[in-house]
């Protein structure tokens, strides 16, 4: 999806070698492996039917459920690319949800409410950006502040209008979440649109290059004439916006504001999606497409545990095993010692 920064080598290597060297190959292989196991366990796994004018089937279900995490993970990928991290995305989702319920009770037009929810996400991003870029606080602790207090803020917003009944109905917001455009669920179209927009923003302007330069070395980027603070600010704004967009979908899904449990632990899944997609927490790389694949890997895993008949309690353990496997595969030291143990030679 995203453009590689490494220049193509003058000698064309064989296709297999080029494929093996491609960074998206590991997450794609993981996804293929999980789906293959699924197909083996339940024969009808891949069937996609059209029921009541919309697509229906396990594959669609995986895409559908992965969308909120994937959207959050896209923003997270940008922040991680600048050597940052944003732990507050779950809280941003809670705040955006609380704002939606509050403004609907206040009687705002629903189009405006959509803008308000996304705007709140930008404000949260602004706050995080302020702490990281201006006050120079370590990202993990800077965003911990909003993570700790954000759900409390959401509860307080619920109290503005009494807080007794934070549920609402909104045809516009619900059409964005559970509705469908022709055959395709709307949220898939929204997610794809966001991916395309973000890709264009990063790869068709110099912004992506600047973000990765700042992540690779803020001081060097500064010397090269990049305003590192401004770029970090932009990253947290993008992340706040993406989290709020996921918040709109998740809140419209349940049509209520539930700040305590909405999007709980989504920051962990989002960070995981970025890492499975080959992003490094030490910054300097943003892979949007691979990040989406990472989110799909996580969801495919959850879905396949459910369809395979294993109790849902196994979900976390299997997830941990997959994370460890992916991490060990990505580690050169571990790969080298495994190859040495089996007597093989690498390169």
């Amino acid at each position, binding site marked *: 999806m995203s453009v590689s920064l490494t220049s193509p080598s003058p000698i064309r290597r064989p296709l297999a070698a080029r494929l093996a060297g491609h960074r998206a190959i590991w997450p794609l292989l993981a996804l293929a492996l999980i789906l293959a196991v699924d197909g083996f366990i339940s024969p009808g796994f891949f069937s996609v039917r059209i029921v009541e004018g919309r697509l229906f089937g396990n594959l669609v279900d995986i895409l559908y459920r992965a969308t909120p995490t994937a959207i959050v993970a896209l923003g997270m990928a940008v922040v991680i690319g600048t050597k940052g991290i944003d732990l507050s995305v779950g809280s941003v989702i809670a705040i955006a949800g609380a704002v939606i319920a509050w403004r609907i009770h206040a009687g705002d037009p629903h189009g405006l409410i959509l803008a308000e929810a996304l705007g709140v996400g930008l404000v949260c991003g602004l706050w995080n950006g302020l702490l990281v870029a201006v006050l120079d606080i370590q990202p993990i*602790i800077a965003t911990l502040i909003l993570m700790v207090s954000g759900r*409390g*803020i959401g509860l307080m917003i619920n109290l503005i209008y009494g807080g007794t009944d934070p549920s609402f109905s909104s045809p516009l917001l619900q059409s964005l979440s559970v509705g469908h455009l022709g055959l395709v669920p709307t949220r898939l179209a929204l997610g794809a649109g966001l991916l395309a927009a973000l890709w264009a923003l990063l790869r068709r302007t110099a912004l992506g290059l600047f973000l990765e330069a700042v992540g690779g070395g803020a001081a060097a980027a500064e010397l090269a004439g990049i305003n590192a603070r401004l770029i970090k600010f932009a990253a947290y704004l993008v992340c706040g916006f993406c989290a709020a967009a996921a918040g709109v979908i998740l809140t419209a899904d349940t049509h209520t504001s539930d700040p305590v449990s909405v999007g709980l632990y989504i920051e962990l899944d989002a960070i995981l999606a970025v890492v499975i997609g080959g992003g490094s927490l030490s910054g300097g790389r943003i892979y949007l497409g691979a990040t989406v694949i990472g989110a799909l890997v996580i969801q495919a895993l959850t879905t396949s545990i459910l369809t395979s008949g294993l109790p849902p309690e196994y979900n*976390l353990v299997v997830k941990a095993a997959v994370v460890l496997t992916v*991490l060990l595969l990505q580690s050169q030291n571990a790969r080298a010692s495994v190859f040495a143990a089996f007597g093989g030679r690498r390169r």
Partner: protein
Amino acid sequence: MNAKYLPMAATIAVFAGLFGIGGALYDHFFSTLVLGDILADNAFVIIAAIGTTFVILSGGIDLSIGSMIGFVGVVMANLDAAGWHPLASAAMMLTFGALYGAIQGFIIDFCAIQPFIATLASLFLLRGACFMINLNSVPLQHPFVASFAAASLPLPGDGFLASSALAMLAALAAAIVIAHFTRFGANVYAIGGDRVSAELMGAPIRRTIVGVYALGGFYSALGGVIYALYTASGYPLAGSGAELTAIAAVVLGGTMLTGGVGLVAGTLFGGMILGLIATLINFNGSLNGAWIMISGGVLLFVFIVVHRSLVGSLRLGRAG
């Protein structure tokens, strides 16, 4: 006064100030009873936070604390049902915690994996293991558990130090000795301050990193043991989010997340400040849980900013 004690002095001042505010606002607040309660209620998370202090001092982070607390409790409760003495199962779980931490530290150092991600996998793994063992709360029924909960040391006034608080203070004393009076402790500070320099000076990096995570695992397992004995049950969701509370306690205690700067003793006061806020809000009665979250965030913010300006003006820590 040595500049390195300033952040901890600030933490103690904040604690004293908050305690004073509570005393001024509410009757019966300013007593050793309240103080003893705060110590007892937060003992498990402060113990885990003491272990995390070492991890953070070395420049790492440990997200597996909360899951470890839950896992230890669930295993202890099930062994209790199988007729084990709680001390025997506790000894086994402490060994498990240290071994698990050591493996985790080895993976982090050998595979050069970010501690955040490696311990995130542990968070999932241990919590998932809790769910696989059982989904309900299981009581610990051995008579020792009741006598542990009843044991206490009277304080002047009408307060008392519960056994969990005593265990925490003992764990803290051991940690202070390890951090400030052993070569291992000096290596932890050296690696956290500047890993490359520490390596050039001959500090054993891998052994120290493995030791740090083993210590972290041991202390979070100890936190889990205390929590299980204190609540007399093993619950698979116990300790959810404790890792964040522990990290917040460490930061409030004046330890810098960049590593190499901080004092183990500060973590005690950082954890007690968080406990004190919850107690204050409970005393008020009309404020709800939302206030605990928000005031926790505000306090973190204020403290980090103050700490940063202290570090900037006194040149504690590394520049940048």
